[in-house]
């Protein structure tokens, strides 16, 4: 009943004659819309793009090389300083070690004094080179 009230056309015989109510284009149709591709052929050529890329990359690598040189110089300075002070530190440690080692040998002699044929402080290795002591007893503060 409501449709007949809204879409009423005066003088219609039945509801089959009601006018059509639709959303449609304006009279004369819509304006034309372009949807065709238009990719221009202008701009830099392939060789130009390649040379620009290669040039930028080369300049970047050159800057990287410059930076590496500077960083290497900084590291070299640090290493040279360490090399310069290494002997002092090693000498101090040697003094401390010899003192502790003498105490250790005295203790070993006291413990093993009744064992026949025991050579105090004898190296446990056959290579002939001096090896630092392998047990952790000499530096209990570190352990």
């Amino acid at each position, binding site marked *: 009943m409501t449709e007949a009230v809204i879409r009423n056309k005066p003088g219609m015989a039945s509801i089959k004659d009601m006018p059509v109510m639709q959303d449609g284009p304006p009279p004369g149709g819509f304006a034309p819309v372009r949807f065709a591709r238009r990719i221009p052929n202008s701009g830099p050529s392939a060789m130009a793009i390649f040379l620009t890329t290669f040039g930028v990359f080369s300049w970047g690598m050159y800057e990287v090389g410059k930076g590496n040189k500077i960083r290497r110089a900084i590291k070299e300075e*640090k290493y040279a*300083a360490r090399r310069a*002070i*290494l*002997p*002092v530190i*090693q000498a101090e440690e040697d003094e401390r070690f*010899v003192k502790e080692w003498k105490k250790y040998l005295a203790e070993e002699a006291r413990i093993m004094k009744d064992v026949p044929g025991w050579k105090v402080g004898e190296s446990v290795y056959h290579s002939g080179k001096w090896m630092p002591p392998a047990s952790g007893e000499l530096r209990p503060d570190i352990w």
Partner: protein
Amino acid sequence: MDSTMDASGEPIPTSSVLMAAAKHIGTRCRGENIAFLKCKKDDPNPEKCLDKGRQVTECVLHLLRELHQNCNKEMDAYAGCMYYRTNEFELCRKEQQAFEKACPF
């Protein structure tokens, strides 16, 4: 860390003081250092290289005393900066320049 010398006038060889003076040590105590390292290479036994080690220590302590005498303030500033910046040379350039201007090696 306030001073590179302790109360009795002896230099304190901490890592920051040694790193601050490293270039001087590298040039002034070069002979002793090389002799000690050669001795160590021949025989790593500490008892065999004690005398050369003592020469190295004497050279370095003597050098530290001399630096303290000649450019006390700059050396303390540089060693203090090294202590603050954990021995990074790049962060202490100003103090380094002042120190090397005062005591060239």
